[in-house]
């Protein structure tokens, strides 16, 4: 919070000057071209083979998880899924640049970050099957992950709400003297919400050590970016709010990694927010409830498939002599098998007992919730065949 005169930086003009060009000419950082070759004069971030391998595996894992769970949804085993195909570099490589103590506040398409943090296959499955092993206790639709141990804030569906929250979380980290920041993910569609503007402005004014990471993937469900905003993407808004801003090729692992490293250092040292706009493309449908054939062409999708972030990173690893295709195939086979096994385990675990329905509304259930639970239990016991998940169970959930 600095004292400033709101006119001190303003120059005078004596001819009416209307600024007519909304395009600010903000460049996009690209370190690997679409064939995986380092771009001219590019300075690549420090990365060893082990880390490159982990990044690649995390991206493959994310894609395999997506494929399998879309299948599970089609089979009717889970109600809903939301894939991130095409955006794995943006979510995985940004997480790589963070410290494990940094808080991640995500939107819903950032499973790549969670994979990199070490969320286990069984944890993914327990959440998606809403069973009693899910730390959210089966209260949210599939993909609304949250894990305190991994500093991954539980996701909520309303778009953009996490943006001002991230400002507040980061302010709290700063006040507590923590050597940590908050990263907040969202899409270009969510950046139309009032919460985006409120959150960025507050973070800038209150000097919150926070990275706002926008995945500009071209679509908000069916609405293309050109029907979402008229200005120069989301990056231009950061500049308007006085937030340090960088635009990056979101399909380039090394560029995303480098940009997020720079942003993190800046946020932590200068105690300020940084906006990253990652230009990418949602190759998948918005969710399992969506069908993109109604609003975009196969040709467009094919154009972007050529820029696939995994292929590009593999091509670069190949030039380094780090790509072991056999090992990757083995990893993929093992991952598929692990996912299937964990899925089979998770779908057999019961849901939480009915007593849980009133827990966590408050720190302890008040009288009216207890009364409502008692009435509900009496009703369930009267018609047990109609409520098979919860009838005749003890508190631990055994039938």
């Amino acid at each position, binding site marked *: *919070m600095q004292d400033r005169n709101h006119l001190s930086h303003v120059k005078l003009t004596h001819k009416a000057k209307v600024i007519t060009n909304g395009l600010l000419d903000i460049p996009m950082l690209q370190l690997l071209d679409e064939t995986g070759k380092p771009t001219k004069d590019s300075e690549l971030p420090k990365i060893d083979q082990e880390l490159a391998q982990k990044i690649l595996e995390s991206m493959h894992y994310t894609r395999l998880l997506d494929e399998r769970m879309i299948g599970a949804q089609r089979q009717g085993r889970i109600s809903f899924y939301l894939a991130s195909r095409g955006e794995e570099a943006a979510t995985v490589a940004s997480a790589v640049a963070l410290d494990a103590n940094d*808080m991640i*506040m995500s939107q819903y398409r950032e499973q790549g970050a969670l994979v990199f943090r070490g969320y286990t296959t069984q944890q993914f499955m327990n959440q998606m099957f809403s069973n009693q092993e*899910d*730390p*959210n*206790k089966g*209260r*949210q639709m599939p993909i*609304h992950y*949250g*894990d*305190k141990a991994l500093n991954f*804030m*539980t996701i*909520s569906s*309303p778009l953009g*709400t*996490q*943006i*001002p*929250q*991230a*400002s*507040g*979380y*980061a*302010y*709290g*980290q700063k*006040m*507590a003297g923590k050597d940590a920041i*908050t990263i907040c993910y969202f899409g270009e569609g969510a950046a139309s919400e*009032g*919460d985006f*503007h*409120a*959150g960025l*402005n*507050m973070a800038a*004014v*209150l000097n919150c050590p926070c990275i706002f990471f926008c995945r500009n993937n071209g679509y908000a469900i069916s609405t293309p970016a050109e029907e979402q905003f008229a200005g120069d993407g989301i990056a231009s808004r950061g500049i308007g709010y006085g937030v340090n801003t960088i635009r990056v090729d979101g399909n380039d692992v090394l560029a995303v990694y480098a940009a997020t490293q720079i942003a993190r250092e800046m946020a932590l040292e200068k105690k300020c927010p940084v906006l990253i706009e990652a230009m990418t493309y949602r190759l998948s449908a918005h969710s399992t409830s969506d069908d993109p054939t109604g609003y975009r062409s196969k040709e467009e999708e094919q154009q972007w498939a050529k820029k696939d972030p995994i292929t590009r990173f593999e091509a670069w690893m190949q030039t380094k002599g780090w790509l072991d295709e056999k090992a990757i195939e083995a990893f993929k086979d093992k991952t598929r098998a692990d996912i299937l096994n964990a899925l089979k385990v998770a779908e057999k675990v019961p849901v939480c007992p009915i007593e849980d329905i009133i*827990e*966590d*509304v*408050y*720190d302890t259930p*008040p*009288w*009216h919730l207890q009364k409502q639970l008692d009435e509900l239990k009496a009703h369930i016991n009267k018609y047990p065949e109609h409520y098979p998940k919860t009838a005749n169970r003890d508190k631990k959930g055994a039938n």
Partner: protein
Amino acid sequence: MAKMNLLQAINSALISMMEQNERVMVFGEDVGHFGGVFRATSNLQQKFGKARCFNTPLTEQGIIGFANGLAAQGSVPVAEIQFGDYIFPAFDQIVNETAKWRYRSGGQFSCGTLTIRTPYGGGIAGGHYHSQSPEAFFAHIPGMKIVIPRNPYQAKGLLISSIKDDNPVLFMEPKRLYRAAVGEVPETDYELPLGKADTVKEGSDITLLAWGAQVEIVEKAAALAEEQGISCEIIDLQSILPWDAETVINSVYKTGRLLINHEAPLTGGFASEIAATVQQECFLYLEAPIARVCGLDTPYPLAHEKEYMPDHLKTFEAIKRTMDY
């Protein structure tokens, strides 16, 4: 003990919480150096520094979004919304975030440390955008607590309890009484229980239930009724959510009659919820229908404020009608 008005009592509660716990932070529009448009946060920035008591940009959704994140982080935010009438841009953050955070995360994270302070209510010639009583909107949100004090003593004790409580609390302050209500308030800390009503006066013929600034209105009506030999029991509900049904029900068992008074419009007001519960629990004890004396189902008027208000005379008439039923 010291003589304080309601604003001073709130200021005193904030000072004592900020002294006790360095994680308590107070913020909102104009609350910094200026001390808030009503001066409830006077001297806090001077005492505790700009990092713990600060102005925010003019964005209610931003203030509550920021406060939610700060609370989830483990700090203890006390966020001010300058007028209850302007809380609605933050409605989504309160309904979908503040109140559901603990539930949706299975208790891993929560906004339990958050307190939202906001002035509410009429009687200050504020028209429809500086006079509303929006408590019923928030009473429909599982996970929230709503607290409304009636005088300086209750204000300090209830605000301290709200800040210490591990649930998000919407603390609504009757702005008409900010300077008008003066009383003895301990200078030291004390807590008053949340979720408990306060029986202000015992009586045997009819129970009069109100909260906030309306408590003194029903007290005035009760004095008129007593002159006619009607013994009134007066209850200040204090907590709208969760509300103390037990105290109200026990009182109605005794008196057989209930009148509920609130400033907010009649339809869908919190009196409806109370009336439904009381008729369920006390059906065979009721000597007369439950009376509601409330605001009209109009936007809060300006020139007709006096006519709109559920004042002591309207309350007195409703007491007589209930007694004569």
